[in-house]
């Protein structure tokens, strides 16, 4: 075992897969300069044909990843910050998500589109998006949103090996957090398998990406108040491990969905609907969502920080659904 950060887990996953399979190559804006530390020494190791700096041209190079995948490569397109996915929506939605289908299975697009969720650090509305739920509404794409370094490494390696296009959303609030990662072991976590991050009896908290860590802190606080919270981390949003979520809700009878994305049509909304449709009989109270409200993210930290799901909001939601009165 060795301690590694979330960012280093990304580096390890990319490096191991590029060593394992020469069809894997990496391209994106400023990847050679190693802007976030996920491509350390990559040019020396793999050469500049497989480690490509692109023009500022997201629709161009994301689409080129699609074209390269169709002819047998396994590209990783590094889109830096998830807000930069928007210029590439055309290629992601019309080409990458749909080509296998439209052409009746003739096209195969094994590729990974990586981008980070760059919120919470005074980067204002155009750099702070958490847009994974938009892509959950587009069949044909798989989506990972890990919450710790161990999962990040295992899921990214699975994503690179997957035969379908995978969007990897990497939460920047997790970047510096460390996990124990086994050395010399091929760590691959299958897509579509969630994980119970903490067992509990009274309420199930399903949390997405960095919100898992906020929820774990909330669970500790709730424990001191006699509420036992179970934390479910789906890890993969598409395909979603519905059974793991429903099993937990069957046990606790209560559910809260925590999501740093905007509330409307969020992953939290979808998971809430799945719970209500399938486990209504098990529920002892309403399914609650703790999300970012439907406003934009402002620059000033004084008004930005309170918009995201906080420990306090999760604790309050748990008390509400478990039935304890909140302190006056």
């Amino acid at each position: 075992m060795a301690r590694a950060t979330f960012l280093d887990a990304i580096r390890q996953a990319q490096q191991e897969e590029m060593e394992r399979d020469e069809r894997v190559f990496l391209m994106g804006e400023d990847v050679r300069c190693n802007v976030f530390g996920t491509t350390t020494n990559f040019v020396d190791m793999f050469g500049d044909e497989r480690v490509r700096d692109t023009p500022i041209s997201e629709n161009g190079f994301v689409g080129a990843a699609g074209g390269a995948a169709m002819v047998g490569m396994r590209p990783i397109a590094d889109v830096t910050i998830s807000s930069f996915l928007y210029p590439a929506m055309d290629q992601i939605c019309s080409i990458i998500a749909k080509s296998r289908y439209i052409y009746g299975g003739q096209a195969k697009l094994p590729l990974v589109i990586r981008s980070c969720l760059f919120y919470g650090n005074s980067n204002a509305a155009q750099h702070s998006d958490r847009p994974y739920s938009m892509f959950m509404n587009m069949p044909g794409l798989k989506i990972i949103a890990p919450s710790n370094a161990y999962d990040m490494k295992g899921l990214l390696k699975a994503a690179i090996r997957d035969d379908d296009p995978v969007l990897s959303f990497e939460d920047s609030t997790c970047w510096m957090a460390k996990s124990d990662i086994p050395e010399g072991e091929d760590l691959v976590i299958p897509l579509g398998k969630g994980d119970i991050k903490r067992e509990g009896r009274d309420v199930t908290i399903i949390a997405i990406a960095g919100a898992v860590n906020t929820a774990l802190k909330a669970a500790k606080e709730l424990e001191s108040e006699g509420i036992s919270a179970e934390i479910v981390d789906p890890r993969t949003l598409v395909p979603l491990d519905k059974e793991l979520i429903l099993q937990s809700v069957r046990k606790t009878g209560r559910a809260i969905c925590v999501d740093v994305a905007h509330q409307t049509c969020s992953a939290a909304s979808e998971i809430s609907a799945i719970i209500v449709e399938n486990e209504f009989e098990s529920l002892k109270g309403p399914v609650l969502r703790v999300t970012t409200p439907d406003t934009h993210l402002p620059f000033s930290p004084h008004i930005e920080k309170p918009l995201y799901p906080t420990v306090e909001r999760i604790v309050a939601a748990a008390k509400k659904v478990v039935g304890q009165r909140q302190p006056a």
Partner: protein
Amino acid sequence: MSKIGDNDPKLEKYRRMQRIRQFEAKAEAIHAQGEIPGALHTYAGMEASGVGACMALRDDDYMVGNHRSHGHPIAKGAELRPLMAELLGKKTGVCQGKGGSMHLSDFSMGSLGETSIVGSGGPVVAGAALGAKLQGSDRVALCFFGDGASSEGAIHEGMNLAAVWKLPAIFVCENNRFGMSTPTSDAVAGENVADRAHGYGIPGVIVDGQDVDAVEEAVREAVDRARAGKGPTLIETKTYRYGDHAVNMGRELTPRGPEHEDWLKRDPIVLYRERLVESGIDEATLDAIEKEAGEAVEDALKFARESEYPEFAEAFDHVYSERLPIPEDVQAHA
């Protein structure tokens, strides 16, 4: 099955143009009677552009086209049966009934899609060319796009990427004078799309799109250049669309000008036939090729008509590499 004039590229060009023209004439007729669902965008008038370009490609070279998709696969040599079956929405269609008229793409012929978001093939072609380069193969990738698509950012991004990385790509702008109802002159700044090549530092070539030999020669030069590692070329074929944006819409959307009659007088198939006859090919051979093309279209239609529709479960196939389950409530009422 051997065909008249097999292995003679001169006759093959004539054959492919005839097959496109007759395939579409049949499709348009049965579309009018409701046998083909959805919209039908015909390529008639533009046959020399597609056939000339594809004759300069090898079978294993890549190609991406657009919603006006009937001509490109036939130009590249695809079989007609799966194409006609696709138009009828049958399981035996080239896309198993999931693509239809806008997406006649035969991957076994090097196609990587006929995409109906115009211009979106630009980045795909750059990527296919990049893939070929990284694999050390000498394949090239060709992008067909229209004058309308030339205004899309995706085309610029694809060409810029191909130029900056010196990729083995060829961009063929089939300027058929109209983007749906809008004349090119109202939508495209500058006189020629090909002039934009200068901005990328690549060759820009304008060619008579009604002259199949001229198109082939221009594309062949671009292909040689691409295979030699010298990067992409932008070629503009000046051509003309005979049909409306889509046919059988009930009213004509395309504002025809006085030049319409001039274009009809320069029909690419008639022009090429005259040239072949002048070069000593006898009329009977050309008549036989024409007849053979008609028979191939009839055979394709018979095959399509006799084919089954896809099973409902296939609507859930090919979203991912594993088939999706059918929701119970949907299955119950399917």
